[in-house]
């Protein structure tokens, strides 16, 4: 009898919402808001820059001129031209060189920290790398301006030391620490049993790394590289200071160039809000946004492809 009543009261309990149920719901909603807000902000930013650049897109914009003309003369009295080809070339050349510098450095350091270094050496290196990642970009720009500039002039006997080479090296050194961090995490995520299994087959340490660890960490390493590329495209202050800021399609690494981001940073403050120049700068912003988006998309597809294979 007693048992019976207890059983029936238990059944009705299923419909009563207790404290745990409410907490669970509340946490679910909070997490949902957190997740959705990131997307909302990105869409918001995209809408904002598109709106500001819209006038130019609808009115003065000529696709052919904007993307294919190397002439960026927004303040010309006679005929202003808005061609960002030279700016794209500047950003791409600096980023490309930066990756040539950063990838070997960061992968080498990451492999050393993750696979070879032990104990105190490892801790010391990790802390040092994290410290390097925290150097502000204006300090890097200063190094480019004050140290690299005379050095390049001396060593290569060129008239100007603010050029693709300077900015590429500075940007490469700048991106290397964060790339190292991410790459090291990716290597550390490879389970030790993979290493042991390969060692048991008689693989040397380098063979273990080359044949097993690197393929296993492929996705994470690709992520590290793409983060570096993203950093290269987005970095503003250091490239503004180290490239020479001259509109130019570079023929060699000793040519000065100008980057997309640096153009926005240098000119936006001096344009009248709503003027074609102002709108053109926002259109550069849209372009940067799309370029980064496409890079991430490609990365995503590549990573998916890797997973499938």
């Amino acid at each position: 009898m007693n048992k019976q009543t207890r059983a029936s009261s238990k059944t009705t309990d299923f419909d009563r919402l207790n404290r745990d149920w409410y907490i669970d719901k509340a946490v679910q909603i909070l997490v949902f808001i957190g997740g959705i807000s990131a997307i909302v902000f990105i869409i918001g930013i995209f809408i904002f820059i598109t709106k500001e650049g819209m006038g130019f897109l609808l009115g003065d914009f000529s696709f052919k001129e904007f993307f294919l003309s190397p002439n960026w003369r927004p303040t010309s009295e006679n005929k202003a031209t808005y061609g960002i080809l030279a700016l794209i070339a500047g950003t791409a050349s600096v980023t490309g060189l930066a990756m040539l510098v950063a990838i070997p450095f960061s992968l080498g350091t990451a492999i050393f920290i993750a696979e070879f270094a032990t104990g105190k050496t490892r801790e010391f290196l990790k802390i040092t790398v994290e410290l390097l990642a925290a150097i502000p970009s204006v300090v890097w720009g200063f190094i480019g301006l004050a140290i690299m500039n005379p050095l390049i002039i001396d060593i290569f006997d060129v008239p100007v030391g603010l050029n693709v080479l300077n900015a590429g090296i500075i940007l490469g050194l700048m991106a290397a620490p964060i790339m190292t961090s991410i790459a090291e995490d990716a290597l550390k995520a490879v389970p030790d049993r993979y290493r042991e299994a390969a060692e048991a087959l008689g693989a040397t340490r380098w063979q273990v790394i080359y044949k097993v660890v690197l393929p296993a960490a492929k996705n994470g390493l690709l992520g590290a590289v793409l983060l570096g590329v993203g950093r290269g495209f987005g970095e503003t202050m250091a490239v503004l200071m180290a490239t020479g800021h001259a509109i130019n399609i570079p023929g060699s690494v000793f040519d000065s160039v100008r980057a997309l981001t640096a153009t926005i940073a240098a000119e936006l403050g001096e344009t009248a809000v709503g003027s074609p120049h102002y709108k053109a700068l926002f259109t550069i912003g849209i372009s940067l946004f799309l370029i980064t988006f496409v890079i991430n998309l490609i990365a995503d597809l590549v990573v998916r492809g890797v997973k499938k294979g």
Partner: protein
Amino acid sequence: MVGSNAVNEDRSLVKDGTEQSPVKLGVENLSIHYETGPALQNVSFDIRKNEIFGIIGPANAGKTSFLKAINRMDMFNPGMKIDGKITFDGTDISKVRNVYGLRSRIGVVFPLPVGLPLSVYDNVALAPRLAGLKNKAELNVIVERCLTRAALWDEVKDRLNSLGSMLSGGQQQRLTIARALSQDPELLMLDEFSIAVDPVTTMRIEDVLKELKNEITIILVTNLVQQARRLADRTAFFLEGQCVDVAVTEDLFTGEVSDQRTRDYVEGRFG
């Protein structure tokens, strides 16, 4: 009566046979310590060429540590300290300079399956490739032979390019066995290989091991007492870091050994 005589004769033959073949692996006063305490204390015995040497014993008996010591896997584990002497074909392995060369002659199958995140084909072709083999046709032959021996070929022959780490647990275990065989090892160490494999497949692999015995030496660490009885020529019983008994397997199981603990364990009274 006649029957039991025949068994006795057979056994002595086996005994003589194993006594005569040369020592493949010599173990003298081997002790292994970790930071947390001793794992193996003062173990000595010889493992002879072309025998299956079984090691049985409950958890924490030091079986896996023993295998790690043979393969010089202590290099991975700075806290692992090895005293005593292990000889491989008469060479003291603690003095071997090219550890990689030593390991390439010893195959290991770990208790937990490790399918490397490479394709099934590359998993099995890894060891021959490490040894410098590039010829595609030869690699194909090795891959097929090893996968067949590990009783996995029929299941994976149509998807050799899919990831080894995506196979099921039992399949990964057999992949690990195939990989160990692909090294063409002189000494094969199996650490509870049947843990994730169904009984039918286990029997198939056991048959392969019996055949392999003609070519190589096998150390079989197992939790299944009956598996040791089916396969091993001689068996050692490890308990809490000590080697309680080493004897011809049938002697161990018929109780012709001195130690009461061994008898209790093989008869399932503890452990």
